[in-house]
Every structure is written in structure tokens, then in C-alpha cells.
């Protein structure tokens, strides 16, 4: 346990001294924040609130870039070997990356929320417990995905290629860039097989529609169990040595991480909840009841618990 704590502390220190980290984990998410809030949401408070879901999701999902790159670099440079002759276990190594990344991502999220309030006058952030829960399972699960990528690739180049291949569908088909409701039906359905879709939708519903954790149980439970699975797979595939080969079973293990969202996707296509929720939110943002509204009430009303459809009882906002 103390090994894990000292490793985590070291990784936080190292990350803060690393310019790449600062760029990818602080500057880039902030860039997304201002792009979405200022341009897509045109600085309109309730629209900014709508886009906070995608903005926070991008910040969370970025975890897998940093974690995969760091682990591959540690292995390629022989840094992991040095730890291998100490009593450090693979579990210490992997868990410290996840926890350090968690600790480092939260301040960025806090600053984004702070700016949303001070610069863009968003006053209602919805359900804090849902936001916190989804952020947590999101950071852990996407971080673990990065560790799995690091384990099925040999070089930094390979890692970056795989990261790109994952990143593009994750951001384009999940609603993180284009709202899900805006995408063609087939693409929406593909999106339902991606963990990112559940994160984006969950965070959007938490902020924009004030959904509490029970209403978002599909989202956080699926991401939570995916986090456990991906972390387990990453620990099975962990390699200390740069020259040790990727076992053949590794690719099967890596594929196994897609299983939960494969089944959830099939189920969601039949139920259609996620897409319906996304459509409702999108509609509310595009057709507010009143075009001009004071920032303080720029939020839809909290849905009543008895409302079976989960839709808000009122469109976007009231004067």
C-alpha cells in the first residue's frame, strides 16, 4: 500500500513537470471548453450547460492518450525494468497511473466548471452527485483503456495509431462533437456500442436535466463495470520488459473489453432510451420556449420523479 502511495505521488509530480501532459490534459481540454462554449453554444448560458456534457466527456476521455503514452514510454525506455527488480507489483504500477490521472484530471474539470459559471454564467449545474459519479467511472475506465492499448502495442508509434483509431469514433459517434440527435440513424446506432456515448449522454442528462444517479444507473453502472473489466485486462496484459512479446491471447483479452458495450448496444437499440434522451435535449436547445432568457434560469425544470419517460415536463427554459 505504501508502495502504491509513493508511486502515485511520483507520477503526479512527474506529470506536472511534463509539458506534454500540461498540453494534453490542461490546455487542450480548455481549448475544447472555449470552442464549445464560445462558438457552438454562442456563449448562451443554457446552451453552454447543454455542451458541458460533451466538454467534460472530452476531458475525461483524454485520459487514455496520456496513460497509454506514459506506460509505453516507461516500458520502451527500460524504466519499468528498474521497477521490476524492486518489490513493486504490476498492480501498484497500474493503479498508481489510474489514481494519479484521476487526481490530475479533477482540477481541470473544476476549472472548466468554474469558467462555465464565471465567464458563461451557467448557474445550474444539475445533479452534482451524478456528475461526480460519472466523472469518476469515466476517468478510471478510459484510463484503463489507455493501459490496455499500451499493453497490446510495442512502440509509441503503434500506440499513437491505435489511439487515433479509437479516438475518432469515440468523439465523432458518441455525441461528443456532433450532438447524437443530429447524426443519421445508422450512425446513432453504431454510437450505442461505444462507452463514450453513455458518458456523454449521462453527463449531459446530469447537467442539463438534473438527473440523479438512480436515473442514470445504466450509464454509470455500464461504465463502472467496464472500468473493472478494462483494469483487470490491463493487469493481465502488463509487461515489464520492452522486448517481451505480446502474447497471442492479448488481442483476445483486448477484444473482451468491447463485450459489455456490445450487449448494452444491442439492448439500447431495442429500448432507444439514450437516443430519445439525446433528441429531447437537442430539441430543447434548438427550440427554446423563449429565445431570450436570463442566465439564472437558463436550465430546464427538473423532471418529476413520476414522469415515466424521463423527459422534462417543460422545454428548455422559462422566462
Amino acid at each position: 500500500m505504501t508502495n502504491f502511495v509513493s508511486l502515485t505521488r511520483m507520477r503526479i509530480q512527474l506529470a506536472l513537470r511534463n509539458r506534454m501532459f500540461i498540453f494534453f490534459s490542461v490546455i487542450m481540454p480548455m481549448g475544447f471548453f472555449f470552442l464549445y462554449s464560445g462558438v457552438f453554444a454562442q456563449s448562451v448560458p443554457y446552451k453552454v450547460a447543454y455542451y458541458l456534457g460533451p466538454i467534460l466527456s472530452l476531458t475525461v476521455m483524454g485520459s487514455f492518450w496520456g496513460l497509454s503514452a506514459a506506460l509505453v514510454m516507461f516500458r520502451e525506455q527500460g524504466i519499468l525494468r528498474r521497477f521490476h527488480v524492486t518489490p513493486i507489483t504490476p498492480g501498484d504500477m497500474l493503479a498508481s497511473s489510474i489514481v494519479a490521472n484521476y487526481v490530475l484530471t479533477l482540477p481541470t474539470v473544476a476549472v472548466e466548471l468554474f469558467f462555465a459559471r464565471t465567464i458563461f454564467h451557467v448557474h445550474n449545474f444539475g445533479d452534482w452527485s451524478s456528475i461526480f459519479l460519472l466523472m469518476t467511472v469515466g476517468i478510471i475506465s478510459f484510463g484503463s483503456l489507455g493501459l490496455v492499448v499500451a499493453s497490446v502495442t510495442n512502440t509509441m508509434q503503434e500506440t499513437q495509431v491505435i489511439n487515433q483509431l479509437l479516438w475518432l469514433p469515440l468523439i465523432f459517434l458518441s455525441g461528443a462533437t456532433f450532438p447524437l440527435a443530429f447524426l443519421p440513424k445508422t450512425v446513432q446506432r453504431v454510437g450505442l456500442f461505444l462507452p463514450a456515448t453513455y458518458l456523454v449522454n449521462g453527463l449531459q442528462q446530469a447537467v442539463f436535466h438534473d438527473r440523479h444517479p438512480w436515473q442514470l444507473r445504466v450509464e454509470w453502472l455500464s461504465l463502472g463495470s467496464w472500468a473493472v473489466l478494462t483494469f483487470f485486462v490491463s493487469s493481465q496484459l502488463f509487461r515489464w520488459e520492452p522486448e517481451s512479446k505480446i502474447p497471442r491471447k492479448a488481442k483476445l483479452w483486448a477484444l473482451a473489453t468491447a463485450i459489455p458495450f456490445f450487449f448494452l448496444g444491442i439492448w439500447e437499440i431495442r429500448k432507444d432510451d439514450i437516443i430519445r434522451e439525446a433528441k429531447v435535449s437537442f430539441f430543447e436547445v434548438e427550440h427554446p420556449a423563449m429565445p431570450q432568457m436570463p442566465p439564472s434560469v437558463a436550465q430546464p425544470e427538473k423532471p418529476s420523479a413520476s414522469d415515466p419517460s424521463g423527459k422534462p415536463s417543460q422545454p428548455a427554459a422559462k422566462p
Partner: protein
Amino acid sequence: MADSILQVENLVKHYGNVQAVRGVSFHVDEGEVFGLLGPNGAGKTSTVEMLEGLRTRDSGRISVCGLDPQENPGRLKHEIGAALQSTSLPDKIRVMEALRLFSSFYKRHRDPEELLKRFGLVEKRNAFYNQLSGGQKQRLALAMALVNDPQVLFFDEPTSGLDPQVRREIYDIVEELKREKKTIVMTTHYIEEAERLCDRVAIIDHGQVIALGSPRELKDRSGDKTRVEVRLTKPDSPDVLKNLEGVTECRELNGIYILQAQRPPQAIVSLVKHLEIHGNELLGLEILTPSLEDVFIELTGRRLRD
């Protein structure tokens, strides 16, 4: 044998079709500096990494501090310290942070301040790892091997790639550890290093121990003959040269004639006479007192660093 701190019996390791280690056996006593000497690719690093628990063996038996590295890796790692080959630390870790971090992993530890002083790194305590010179990095690697006050130290090619002056610094450090009666297992492909630092040496070639003993014993085995190495303008026959007065043996290696001489002055006089008669000339001549290199050449017919 029973009181040896480290025992290896019939160790075997394959990588695919390549047999890297083929039945290596030796033992190391407490307080001894034991060297594995051999050319690159001889299987030294594979052997040491199996002892450290970094690699699994295919067969054979290993006991380090009474523990099997494969069955008890967790416990063993508290008892050993290692300076590995081809390893590194994160660029932006400071010297003192690295020492403190690594010592925090162990049950038993030494004072990092004392290690800094001892390895001449006090001024560099706040330097980032990537700001250190090759020699400083190696000194830090050795210091880090000592953070847990280990029972057995493993130094894998501790001076490889360092310039001669830095190499001597490292020798001084190892000699000091030797005076403290630390048990050290080191690999090297430098003859001087093995001769100067090791109490006993196992010469390894193609994954096998081909000779084992103290440097003195090994050299004695080579007959204590001085070696005269000559280069000639025209080729000559080793069979002719070995019949010259004072020469007991001759062989040719890459255009260099290696003469074993019991009485070097006589051998040189007779060689010069012989060359004059045959219109041949000396391009170069070197007289070498016996070293482990001779032992290696004698056993394998090759130089250590071919």
C-alpha cells in the same frame, strides 16, 4: 557449497530456437565478488536476470539468499539490489527523489543522504535525471542498488559505454563495496575489470561456463606464458613460427601472429633473425603479460571482443 549465498545448478534458457544459457552452474560465497566474463551475447545477462527474478528459467535450480527467484520473487526482491543494463529513470525525476522513492519500496533501508555523499552526488541532489552525465547516471544506478542494504548485489556491465576515467571511478566504488564484504555478482566483457575486481570469475561463452576460478588460477592454467603479438608485412606460417627458439606456441588471428613465449627476449631475437632471412619485416610488435584474455583465446580460439 552449503553456506553459499547464491547457488546455480544446470541453468537453461531458450529464446525461441536460440539456446541462450546451456547448463550454467556456479555458486557464490558471502562477501565474494563474483564475475561472469564473456563476450556480448554469451548469456551473462540472461543468467543474471534469472537470478534477479526478472526472467523465468526453462530448467535448472537457483537459490539466492535461500530463496527461489521464481517461487518467492516478492521476498527475494527485498534481499537483492541491482544495477541493470539498458534501463533508465524518468527524465524529470530528481536524484534525491529517485533515491527516496526507491528506498520507500523496501522494509530495510539505508539513509539516502549517506548514499548521496558516498557516491559523490551531493551537488546533483536536485538535478533532473536527464541532466546527469553518463558517469553520474551510473553512480546513481549503483547508489540505488544499495537503498535497501541488500545481501546480494547484481551489477550487469556496470562500466559498459563509459569512458576510461569514469570507469575507474566505478572500479573504486566496487572496490570499496568489496572491502565492506558485500556479496557482488557482476557481468563484464572487460578483462581488466574482471581481473581487478573479482575474487572469482566464470568465463562464459555460448551459454556455457568454460572456465571458473580466481583470476590467478585461471591465468596459471594458461601456463604463465608471455604473449608476443606481431604483425608482418608478408604472411608467414604459424607452424614455422612456433618452432623458433623460445616460442612454445603460435597461432594466427585476423592477420596477427600470437606467439606464446617462455623466454620473451630470446623469442624476439629468433623471430627477427627468421624474418630477415625470409625478407619479411615487422609491422608491429606487442608484448603482453598473461591475462584472462589469453585464457579465453586458449579456450575458444577467439578474442573476447570479436
